């Protein structure tokens, strides 16, 4: 695993690159640890409060520790009418956790998201950004088995 300081160093020359740096850190660590945000603030020469403000503004950046695989369920209107609630229930049951929680082994986190732009196949979930369409409760086990 790359050190967050090395990751940040790759982006300090990029104008406005702090968000790119946060994306890269999160790709490695699955979330933004407090010390990484402080280090980014120093590297990009902005107050820590401002760096933290950026990290907490965007819903795809997390300052809370998460599992290795982040599962997001779309709750926007097209997925809502297509039965997203049943998919939520099936995922919660399969993983034994509630939305917003992480499995005790640190393997999966469940999160809500708004539209992910795959509305030709609602309801949609994504795992680490990869979309799965036309998800039904009985497909959940098969999808999870790949992780």
């Amino acid at each position: 695993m790359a050190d967050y300081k090395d990751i940040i160093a790759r982006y300090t020359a990029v104008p406005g690159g702090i968000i790119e740096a946060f994306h890269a850190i999160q790709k490695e660590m699955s979330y933004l640890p407090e010390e990484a945000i402080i280090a980014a603030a120093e590297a990009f020469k902005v107050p820590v409060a401002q760096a933290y403000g950026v990290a907490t503004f965007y819903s795809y950046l997390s300052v809370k520790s998460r599992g290795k695989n982040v599962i997001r369920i779309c709750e926007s209107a097209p997925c809502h009418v297509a039965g997203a609630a049943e998919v939520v229930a099936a995922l919660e049951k399969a993983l034994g956790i509630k939305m917003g929680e992480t499995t005790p082994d640190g393997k999966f986190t469940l999160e809500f998201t708004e539209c992910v732009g795959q509305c030709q196949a609602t309801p949609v979930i994504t795992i680490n950004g990869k979309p799965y369409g036309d998800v039904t409760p009985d497909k959940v086990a098969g999808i999870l088995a790949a992780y």
Partner: protein
Amino acid sequence: MAEEMRVVLRNYGKIDPLNIDDYINAGGYKALEKARSMSQADVIAEVRKSNLRGRGGAGFNAGMKWNFAYGVQADQKYVICNADEGEPGTYKDRIIMENDPHAVFEGMAICGYAIGANKGYIYCRGEYPYVVDLLNQAIAQAKAKGVLGEFDIEVRMGAGAYVCGEETALIESIEGHRGEPRYKPPFPPVSGLWGKPTIVNNVETFANVAQIIEKGGDWYAGLGAASYPGTKVLTLTGDVVNRTVIEVPTNTTIREVIFGFGGGIRDGKKFKAVQIGGTSGGFIPESLLDTPIDFDSMTAIGAVLGSGAVFVMDETRDIVDVVERIAGFFEHESCGKCAPCREGTMRMYELMKKVKSGKGTVKDIELMKKLGGVMSVACLCGLGQAAPSPVLTTITHFRADYDAKLQ
């Protein structure tokens, strides 16, 4: 039945997006060459003549916008492609970028030449990491071929903030800040990214440009509806038989879209409502389905064309349930900068939850109408101004659904 007309999606399914030679063999990058043989003012005049209007939802005349940036003296100018499509039910920009990325680059480069910018950014939403990869590969191919000349394109990835589709919030995000909209004026063509003149156009807008330069503004101005010419890429979702993407002339009616191209309602059910333009669009009842989809005709019926999402609901759908979910969306996505939106979206969601739970009264409906009216004029940016639209239009057209739940 009317037929599709593919201008933006001219290469859809015909070329390999990751083989630049396919695009070039299909006539790609000839328009850029042509534009560079013209004067900057003539390129802008051609785009103005086409009457191409923004495809992201605001419908502003693209050539006029470019002319503002062209007219400003500056040591640096920027071209930004808004690929932050976040309107629920919309995925047209993804389809365009995944299938024909060079059409977007070519449009950006023509814009860059016209206004005098040598740097472009594509701000692609964080929900599309796979599109970001594809764009970066396609840009590398364009650079290797040298087709873009001095024009450089860089991709920046958003991080899940709907408000960043608003152009000044998007600019803030590229600068590495929270994506909060700026006060306007100054508008981005005068002072945008890092204070420099900046053109922000939607993916679909840019994808039209090369065809306009190649075939002429008059040709484009003659397609579809006169006041909003050309085609529109629409994404059909919800209870429609064909949940798919289509491109149609802008004088096509909503009825043709849903019952012709869309194949009607699923499972033999009846139509109840359609929400067009994304989650901030108005809800449209059966009686208004013969309206053409162009910008001005939609505005005239209190709806919008917006991003071109077409979200169809059948007779079994509970409008209050759907609108409550939408109100929750706006409460979540409000950036919090201005009070009318921060407070308004929260109170609207509270009231919708109350109505949905069966505890609402006629007074609450009146309060929502009043609150919505205030938000639509007092909010700083389009997010807050449009947020009450689903509530207000459903109270107008689907009042029975509300009344059935009131105390």
